[in-house]
């Protein structure tokens, strides 16, 4: 949770690579800079922080469609067309996962949005309403 130095370096590395610099050139420049400041020992930790940033960015951009059974895939794809269009996502960005705890239906999550049309959600909602009335 803390803004450690390696995170700042990893963030800078991410930004220069995003900005168009080649990865090998960016890493080389970073290493030179660290060496000049006597901070070369930070490199492994910067690597791990960079991996975390990559993971976070992936979470931000990935769209995951979860379905209970493989056979539900086609139905789910046809049902989520409008949802994907409203989010501005093309079909080929989609990753499909099998999550048998969903019981049925589908669940689409990514880019800060969640659309849960699974049976599990409906059943849990039903259960909540039943015990609270």
């Amino acid at each position, binding site marked *: 949770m803390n803004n450690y130095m390696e995170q700042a370096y990893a963030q800078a590395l991410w930004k220069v690579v995003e900005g168009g610099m080649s990865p090998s050139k960016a890493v080389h420049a970073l290493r030179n800079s660290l060496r000049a400041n006597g901070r070369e020992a930070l490199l492994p930790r910067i690597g791990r922080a960079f991996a975390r940033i990559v993971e976070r960015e992936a979470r931000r951009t990935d769209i995951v469609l979860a379905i209970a059974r493989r056979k539900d895939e086609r139905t789910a794809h046809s*049902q989520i067309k409008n949802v994907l269009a409203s*989010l501005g996502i093309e079909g080929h960005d989609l990753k499909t996962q099998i*999550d048998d*705890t969903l019981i*049925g239906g589908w669940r689409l999550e990514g880019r*800060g*949005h*969640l*659309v849960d*049309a699974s049976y599990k959600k409906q059943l849990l909602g039903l259960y909540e309403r039943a015990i609270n009335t």
Partner: protein
Amino acid sequence: MDSSTVEKIIKEIEHIAPSHGGEHVGKVVAVGDGVVAIDGLSKAVMSEVLTFEETKGKKLAEGMEAQGQLLGLVLNLEEDGVRAAVLGDTARVAEGMTVKSTGRVLSVPASDEMLGRVVSTLGEPIDGKGPFKKTTMVPVERQAAGVIDRKSVSVPLQTGIKAIDAMIPIGRGQRELIIGDRGTGKTTVAIDTILNQKNEPKDRRPICVYVAIGQKESKTARIAQQLREQGALEYTIIVDAPASAPAALQYLAPFSGVAIAEYFMDKGKDVLIIYDDLSKQAVAYRQLSLLLRRPPGREAYPGDIFYLHSRLLERACRLSEEKGGGSITALPIIETQEGDVSGYIPTNVISITDGQMFLITDLFNKGIRPAIDVGISVSRVGSAAQTKAMKAVAGGIKLELAQFRELEAFMQFASDLDKETADRIESGRRMVEVLKQKNGEPIPLEKQVAAIYAANQKFFIDVPLKKVTEVEKRLIEFLDTKSSKTLVEIKKTGVLSDESKKELNKAMEAFRLGHEELFAGK
């Protein structure tokens, strides 16, 4: 539930076209000490409620066993995400967990059914008496009533404590701070005030809200038991955020309490709210702020600690007739260290409130209870609300006691005193005795007036010091039976007329003649 029922339900659901209304979500990236860092949620707003999705990847049965929805509260908006306080057990939050924004600010349920109940910060019943049937959701954070919607304080709120009602009177809608070291009787003063509301007629009786912040659960249970036994719980709501509760819930508890109080105030009712205590709330807020990496200021409290208390206490007010005429009287409690009232939080709250009563360890140890130091205690608006009868008898007490304290100190060095000084000291000693009061025994206004009137008339001057309390008690019992009409008259009119004074003098003389043995010299 049998399998055929489950199948039926599933078939029913299959016929329901899935709703495609998406939710805004983020992911937990770090969690610890009641605070979570969430990536995403770019549309979240300050103080928005979040829900943690604990059922993801879990079987239906496990989801059904979950212990209610886990909530979070957005407290920091940052570049890549938000930081939120977990309003529950942090151990239930895991890294990577999906967090949903709800689009609503924190609200608690409020209803008449809450009277006589003990609830958590989130308004959930925790006394095992079952859920509330019908409730209204009220926002925890609300703008205090404006100047136009307010009315000045003019109706008294009787505490049933002679020293307070006589010298530091409190009006409905006032904010009076109770301040002192630990173990000086701050909670007792507050609880006695709640108990005394039983003496008020039902239609004018204030509803009481006792907010316990960072207290031991055993203490809160004892208070609930005391209120129940003395019949005061029926008009009281206890909001409990114990010491074991997360800091976020301790910080929010007073706001929940005042939100519930406002529900009643908006219905035109008078409410008395006690925050026991705001020092612990400030500590909880400091903990949260430091975990949220907000810059620390004096004593490591965040910069907005004053605003935390001022926006809470500003919600205590008396509304105008157009707004229903309801009121919230606040009695915040602050605990000092070694009697130091110049600490950061004590000075802040002293400056916000409309007066303060100081409870002093030395007085407490001398057996003067309530241990209120009347010299430095003050009520800035309460005198406008004091009943005429009390005003008539209490006018000179404060001055008399102040003079007595001076003379008492002087007496330690001087052995020979002139008669006038000696009399003044004796009279002062007896006045101190009259103002002593046992805890859990608030006294109705008319009896307070009678006792103080008797003291003013030097009725107790011939009574041995040790027996003053007993004689006073017996005198009040005597008046209750022989002069009940006069007492009823004082209660009804709130005035001590010349006629009433005559009656009281007669009754006092009759008591003296009937109890010569009690007046057997100093």
